[in-house]
């Protein structure tokens, strides 16, 4: 069983490596580095404006640390066929999961260490915390997180509850209480609670080896969702095969489609518009990027950074819509339709023009809010419109041709 884990892990890491290489090849990673730089710049500016302790300082630290502790779970690398082919090996899967848990400690530890490190500047300035406190809390949180991975393991066996209480909920309540006590009163509390929690759960998880009954459906679904999140992230930068996302009916948005006249040349617009609105992946992507862009434009008052944010995000949304066209083109039935390729591309660019225009209007409002009706603001808005035209009239039609047949 541990061999199986080793084999899966090797394949998984190879996969990840492949995608990471693709990402770091892509042209706009550079732009992302600029963005991170911009955020760093904004953070240091923000720190510069804080001269004395803030009342909301500690609550912010607590909230961010709490969120950071939620990052990461067990990567089980289970696959769909396991529930058929490896059903007979169920008892031995405990060893497999143990190996999986040992591997999965890496991401939470790095995340917590990094967040604590970045937050330490803010924590000492705005929350008035000492370095020793921050270090103790960081250690406590890491031990706590290692303990809580056992909860994920127990969930695979359907045992993640104390009586009728959900163990995740209990753990999180305990975490919040210990965070509050350790930031306001005594930081060592976090370490003590973390160690007790860790030992207690390690003890609770032991009986599963002999008496546990694996919840195959839950375990495989959870792993699929985890994989999907990772792939969706990669999908932001490069095409990832097999990323299927959730479809929601959203009946209340049906009114939007009334503008599409039911005629032959609109066949694909009919299809694309519904797909975009109902497929969580694409509508989600559009909303996420549009909202992040608007917030950034509202906060940043540097002309050049705002200009980059405006142009980059419009390009990004356009770029990220392309895989949807590809997805539909892979449907065999539509290839049989007596509809020309030109109509398909025209329908898609029509949809992308509408989507990017909405984004452009939202971002323009954010720019006017920040820069007012000034020359600088106007330049940024016009630059956004130029990107919009470029994407829809030059970039998109050429790119989409590649996906036909």
């Amino acid at each position: 069983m541990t061999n199986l884990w080793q084999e899966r892990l090797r394949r998984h890491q190879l996969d990840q490596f492949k995608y990471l290489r693709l990402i770091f090849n892509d042209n706009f990673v550079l732009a992302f580095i600029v963005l991170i730089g911009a955020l760093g710049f904004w953070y240091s500016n923000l720190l510069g404006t804080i001269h004395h302790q803030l009342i909301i300082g500690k609550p912010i630290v607590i909230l961010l640390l709490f969120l950071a502790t939620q990052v990461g779970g067990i990567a089980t690398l289970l696959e769909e066929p396991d529930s058929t082919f490896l059903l007979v090996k169920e008892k031995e899967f405990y060893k497999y999961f143990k190996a999986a848990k040992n591997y999965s400690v890496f991401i939470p530890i790095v995340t917590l260490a990094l967040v604590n490190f970045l937050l330490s500047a803010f924590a000492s300035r705005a929350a008035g915390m000492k370095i020793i406190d921050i270090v103790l809390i960081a250690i406590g949180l890491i031990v706590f997180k290692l303990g809580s991975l056992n909860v994920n393991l127990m969930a695979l066996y359907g045992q993640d509850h104390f009586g009728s209480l959900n163990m995740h909920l209990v753990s999180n309540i305990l975490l919040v209480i210990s965070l509050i006590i350790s930031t306001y009163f005594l930081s060592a509390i976090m370490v003590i609670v973390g160690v007790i929690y860790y030992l207690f759960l390690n003890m609770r998880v032991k009986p599963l080896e002999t008496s546990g009954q694996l919840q195959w459906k839950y375990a495989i679904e959870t792993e699929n969702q985890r994989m999907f999140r990772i792939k969706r992230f990669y999908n932001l930068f490069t095409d990832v095969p097999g990323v299927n996302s959730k479809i929601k009916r959203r009946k209340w948005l049906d009114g939007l489609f009334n503008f599409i006249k039911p005629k032959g040349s609109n066949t694909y617009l009919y299809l694309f518009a519904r797909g975009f609105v109902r497929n969580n992946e694409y509508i989600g992507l559009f909303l996420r990027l549009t909202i992040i862009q608007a917030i950034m434009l509202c906060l940043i008052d540097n002309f050049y950074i705002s200009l980059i944010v405006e142009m980059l995000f419009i390009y990004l949304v356009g770029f990220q819509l392309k895989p949807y066209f590809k997805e539909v083109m892979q449907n065999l039935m539509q290839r049989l339709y007596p509809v020309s390729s030109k109509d398909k591309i025209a329908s898609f660019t029509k949809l992308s023009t509408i989507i990017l225009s909405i984004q452009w209007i939202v971002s323009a409002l954010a720019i006017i809010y920040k820069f007012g009706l000034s020359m600088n603001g106007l330049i940024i808005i016009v630059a956004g419109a130029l990107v919009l035209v470029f994407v829809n009239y030059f970039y998109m039609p050429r790119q989409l041709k590649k996906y036909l047949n």
Partner: protein
Amino acid sequence: MTLEVKELTGGYGQVSVLKKETFNVESGQVVGLIGLNGAGKSTTIKHIIGLLTPRGGQILIDGISLHDDVEKYRKKIAYVPEMPILYPELTLREHIDLTIMAYGLDHDKTWVNATELLKTFRLDNKLDWFPQNFSKGMKQKVMIVCAFMTDASLFIIDEPFTGLDPLAVNDLLNIVEAKKKAGCSVLMSTHILATVQNHADKFVLINHGQVRADGTLDQLKAKFNMQQDSNLDDIYIKMSHEDL
């Protein structure tokens, strides 16, 4: 409507699966395409509907090839694939509307046909559901409805009976019969020989990517030197033993 397959050679990539296949489907004929798994039935169908391009030979529908006029050629065909292929983000109603738009059909007239078919397959109360979440058999029914509501003249169905309940098999055969009476042609590939024996006018037996024999049941019996009371199963088994 006539379908002519002349010396068709083709396949996936560099490998030729089909070697000089020749057969016809005449107006008002139901033709069964028969062969072992991997014999080349689905590959033949993929060439006819234009998903694969022939490496040699010709496929003509009413004298025109896909190359001559893509849209005209495609409008003549309705296809039911072996595995249902649906749009995950469209409801059943929208699948029908989309097909109407794509094939440039008359909206109201087609909906009358569609409603009748939906009722036959007991899908008329599921118009606002996502067919993607249906069972295999129900998805297959959606594909059948979307194909048979069109005004195509050639219906190509790949393994239509697997996954359908006996009642639906019967309904499908009735629909095929009605289309035949209306002068349309039907080409279906299947392994359910007993069914196709009773409902097809002609059979095309494919083996190793070649047409081993074609004709009516009586003609086939003569070709294989079979007794008068033998059925399609016997012929099929005899053909597959020829390789040994």
